[in-house]
């Protein structure tokens, strides 16, 4: 026991002084923590494994390359890409304002902007419906102007942006708060105007978090289901994204639904791996 205490003490010292050295000393975690971790990991991995086992692998290729599947996949990729661009264009300024500006109601704004994170997607879909729907707050005016959002691909992009935007805002805002204003202050006293500070100091510092935020956004947009179903409808090639196609196939052709699900799981794995490899290297992200 004393031996272990000594080791723990040594590791604490090493942890404090030698953060840069490659070797990390063993940390003393109680064993029940590992048991809990194992159960938790199984809860996530086991269902995915079960689905993989149920997959009709011999028919996998024809199933995922059927015309309806390809149409859904293509639509999903296009809409997710579009909403990701929207997220970056709208989310970055939003994060900057939330992290740097000071005005009354900022806290409230922040809470509201992050609401889609905790809102059931179907509620988001209904909210969008009453805003951009044909009889919605803005939808009615759009309709008069000849812009029909209801049942269009634009509606899918709106729904995806609605649910994905908080991910980008959160990621970028956290980075801004961590970075603090020290560098920006230094730049300003060197004579850099706010635009220059943003372009040459703030944004470069944000790049790693912007990248991981963007990837998360894309993943969230790709997986969007509830809001799209409620708000945009479901029509092959127009609004029926991959999750909606899976939902439809699940009722009639489970094999196809499983195959398409595995396609989404694979995509998600790649995305998570990409994000994780970026965020798992503290410090180096900013320099390279």
């Amino acid at each position, binding site marked *: 026991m004393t031996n272990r205490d000594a080791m723990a003490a040594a590791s604490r010292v090493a942890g404090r002084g030698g953060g840069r050295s490659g070797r990390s000393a063993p940390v003393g975690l109680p*064993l029940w923590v590992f*048991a809990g971790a*194992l159960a938790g990991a199984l809860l996530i991995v086991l269902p995915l494994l079960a689905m993989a086992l149920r997959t009709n692998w011999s028919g996998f290729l024809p199933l995922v390359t059927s015309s309806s599947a390809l149409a859904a996949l293509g639509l999903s990729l296009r809409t997710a890409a579009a909403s990701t661009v929207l997220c970056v264009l709208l989310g970055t300024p939003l994060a900057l304002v939330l992290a740097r500006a000071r005005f009354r109601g900022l806290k409230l704004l922040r809470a509201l902007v992050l609401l889609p994170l905790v809102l059931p997607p179907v509620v988001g879909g209904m909210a969008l419906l009453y805003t951009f729907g044909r009889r919605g707050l803005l939808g009615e005016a759009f309709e008069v102007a000849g812009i029909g959002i209801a049942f269009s691909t634009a509606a899918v992009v709106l729904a995806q942006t609605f649910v994905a935007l908080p991910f980008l805002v959160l990621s970028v805002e956290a980075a801004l708060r961590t970075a603090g204003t020290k560098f920006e202050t230094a730049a300003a006293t060197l004579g850099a105007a706010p635009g220059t500070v943003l372009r040459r100091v703030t944004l470069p510092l944000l790049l790693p978090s912007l990248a991981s935020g963007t990837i998360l956004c894309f993943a969230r947009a790709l997986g969007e289901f509830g809001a799209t179903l409620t708000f945009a409808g*479901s029509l092959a090639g127009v609004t029926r994204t991959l999750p909606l196609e899976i939902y439809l196939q699940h009722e*009639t052709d489970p094999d196809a639904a499983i195959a398409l699900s595995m396609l989404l799981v694979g995509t998600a794995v790649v995305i998570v791996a990409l994000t994780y490899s970026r965020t798992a290297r503290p410090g180096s992200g900013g320099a390279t």
Partner: protein
Amino acid sequence: MTGGPRRGSRHRAAAALLAGSLVLAGCSGTPGGDRTADSGGDGQVLTVYAAASLAGPFTELARSYEFAVPGTTVRLNFAGSAELATQILAGAPADVFASADSATMERVDSAGELGGAPRDFATNVPALVVPAGNPAGIAGLADLEDDGVALVMCAQQVPCGAAAHRLALANAVSLRPVSEENSVTAVLAKVRTGEADAGLVYRTDVVRGGGDVEAIPVPQADEAAVTYPIAATRRGAETGRGQLAAGFIEHVAGPKGRAALEQAGFGTP
């Protein structure tokens, strides 16, 4: 790095896992199924899986059956027929299955999951509904061919979609919906909120839609009628609730059932 504590920890981990799975099992709360033992006395629980369109009459019929057979509890699970079939094929503890079309029942039957022959107990016909006030001025099926009309219907893969297609075929119109939903309730919702100018649903949905929707008369609707079959499941029969299931089916097909179904807009086969 000695063996002792490590082995002990493995046991502890296994125990934790076991405990965890027991907790999960406890949470799963299988409806009906394993609850017979503790429902006490002659009390039995019958689990009925029924198509969403049957929600109204079946809720009423479940109560009256419970009254007719004292000590019985009827649990109801309403969803799209195809979804229910998928659940039953995956081992869901249904004792009775009432589907909105024969094809779906056939799917369950061919998988060997039925405990008896299906029995047709109701019919339903497709109906054309528009939001209250009929903003797009729809007069009949032919108006649905107009590009400016936002028509919402079920996807062809689900029963209500198949029926709608048969209706279109019988009237020789080609439909170009702006959305193909998974369930008739989703179609009804989009008409109710005014998102859609028109929707193809069932006659029973006109009743459910109340004042929010108006029905537009459609010829040849009977040609596209769907028949609702009901059957006991193999699982129900094997767990000793075959009698109870048969009784419920009799109740639904009998005079009480007929009256309730007719009131909801269903027809008689």
